[in-house]
């Protein structure tokens, strides 16, 4: 019962912190956009716009109101899930609908990439630590350094070249929405997910190997061994469990790179996600849409970090 209460308190505290950061983020995004160079009216209508059309545009998008009024209107809308309408990319279309239809694709590819990175790093990191100093360890550590040295967009093309154009196993472009066909999404999403996952997997492998090696020679492991526990039991309960704490922490830190990676990779593989939507919006200077996309990404990172924080407290009771 007490555990449940402390968990609830922690969740409430975390939710409060998230809400505060999200509000700050919303304000920062809004005012940075307004302080930035360029007038949305000019960006949309072009240099040839007459003063009359510009005035009409400003009136239509209510750009003449004081900044704080505009901010309040936008924020109060955003809180009930109304981000206004897109200016350029899909003129007049509600942004919630645009982002909502694409968010599942981004989340799917992101989760897919995370899953791949976890599987690869758990296997490679464990083998590397248990066989440290051996050939297989050197091979895996070298591969890991190579992995973090490959920009995801370049890796995307290397994968397209080898596996799509060369061997013809995977499609080089296009993505099937998971709601249409899960198998199709897993198949067509494999290359983009792998391109995002490879640098992550490399970083995770390195941290898991280090963490495992650090715990392998601790006193409590020696004691467990002297008590006659089997090696498998010791590894699972005394080594792996402890090494998980830095491992999970690093996953939380890397999520911002993982979600950042989706932006370019979505574009390359033609995944209809929030990342490619944001690139379109950036090109078209569709200000409200850029704002909304940035906030959606911010919310994703905050939520994942919150989950990571909860998992870490569970793994390491000293933190609570």
């Amino acid at each position, binding site marked *: 019962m007490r555990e449940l209460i402390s968990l609830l308190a922690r969740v409430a505290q975390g939710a409060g912190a998230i809400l505060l950061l999200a509000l700050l983020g919303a304000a920062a995004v809004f005012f*940075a956009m307004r302080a930035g160079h360029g007038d949305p009216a000019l960006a949309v209508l072009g240099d040839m716009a007459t003063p009359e059309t510009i005035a009409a545009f400003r009136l239509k998008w209510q750009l003449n109101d004081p900044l704080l009024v505009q901010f309040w209107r936008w924020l109060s809308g955003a809180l009930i899930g109304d981000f206004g309408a897109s200016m350029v990319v899909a003129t007049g279309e509600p942004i919630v609908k645009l982002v909502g239809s694409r968010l599942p694709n981004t989340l799917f590819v992101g989760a897919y990439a995370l899953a791949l990175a976890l599987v690869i790093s758990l296997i490679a990191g464990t083998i590397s630590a248990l066989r440290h100093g051996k050939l297989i360890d050197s091979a895996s550590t070298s591969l890991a350094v190579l992995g973090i040295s*490959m*920009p995801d967009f370049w890796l995307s093309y290397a994968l397209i070249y080898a596996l799509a154009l060369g061997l013809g196993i995977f499609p080089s472009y296009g993505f099937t929405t998971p709601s249409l066909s899960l198998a199709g999404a897993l198949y067509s999403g494999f290359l983009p997910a792998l391109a995002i996952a490879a640098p992550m997997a490399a970083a995770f492998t390195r941290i898991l190997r*280090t963490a495992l090696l*650090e715990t392998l020679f601790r006193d409590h492991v020696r004691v467990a061994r002297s008590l006659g526990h089997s090696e498998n039991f010791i590894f699972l309960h005394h080594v792996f469990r402890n090494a998980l704490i830095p491992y999970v922490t690093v996953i939380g830190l890397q999520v911002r790179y993982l979600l950042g990676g989706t932006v*370019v990779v979505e574009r390359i593989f033609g995944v209809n996600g929030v990342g490619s939507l944001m690139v379109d919006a950036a090109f078209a200077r569709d200000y409200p849409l850029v704002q909304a996309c940035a906030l959606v990404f911010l919310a994703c*990172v905050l939520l994942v970090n919150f989950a990571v924080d909860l998992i870490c407290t569970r793994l390491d009771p000293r933190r609570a």
Partner: protein
Amino acid sequence: MKLNLATAMSNKLALIGGCVTGIVALAVVFGPWLSPYSPTEADFLALLAPPSLSHPLGTDSFGRDVLTRVLYGARISLAVSISGVLAAAVFGVIIGMMAAWRGGLWSAVAMRFCDLLFSFPSFVLALFMMVVLGYGVVNIAIAIALIYMPIFARLSRNMALLVKDEPYVHAAILMGQPTHSVLLREILPNIAAPVFVQIALGVAFGIVIEAGLSFLGLGVQPPNPSLGTIMADGREYFQRAPWVLTLTGMVVSIALLGLNLLSDGLRDVMDPKLRARL
């Protein structure tokens, strides 16, 4: 925690990484002078020539030598990345040290701002800054600085908190050293090692950000070469001439590999326990 050259030499990683980084740096600084080709002038007799002795990385759709363009482009990419990361380091370390030293409202606000920056996906923040500030080389450097500043702030805050209560810091305060001199002469040298490691890592990361932005067409604008714009060009005719994109990417990877090995090696040389603290 002085950097001992002998130990650095004995660390194979640091040595290899340093060599690779050094070769890349030399090539970037002196290479463009040695190349007989121009990075922007077209040669219509050698369109999309595959790699050969006269064009080691082939030519692009304007017949321009890809190696020459890579050498010129790497100058811009490196300059952008280095200036962005150095700016991030300066501001981040100041914020972090102040937060550890004094606490107080000002530094709390600065740290929350860093937390906020840290919560945006890296590339999303870069993209957003490009819309706010407009395209251009300086703005990419600013974006890199904003992405990387929270990392320096957190790192130097955590390190400074450890150092702050050491006897020699107390001694310096008791001897009547003014605050700025305690911070600069006692604390900064003792948190410098991990900061250097982060700078090496950050420069590698900055190259990727610049290349990514320019690759999408939101960074350095053609015909100026940068590693990203060269690869973006290569994408257009990827099927006919895969070498432009592939080999340029490989050069980028080699540079990143050098920087990553160097930072790994530096980390081991300076402080083997650093990893646990990050």
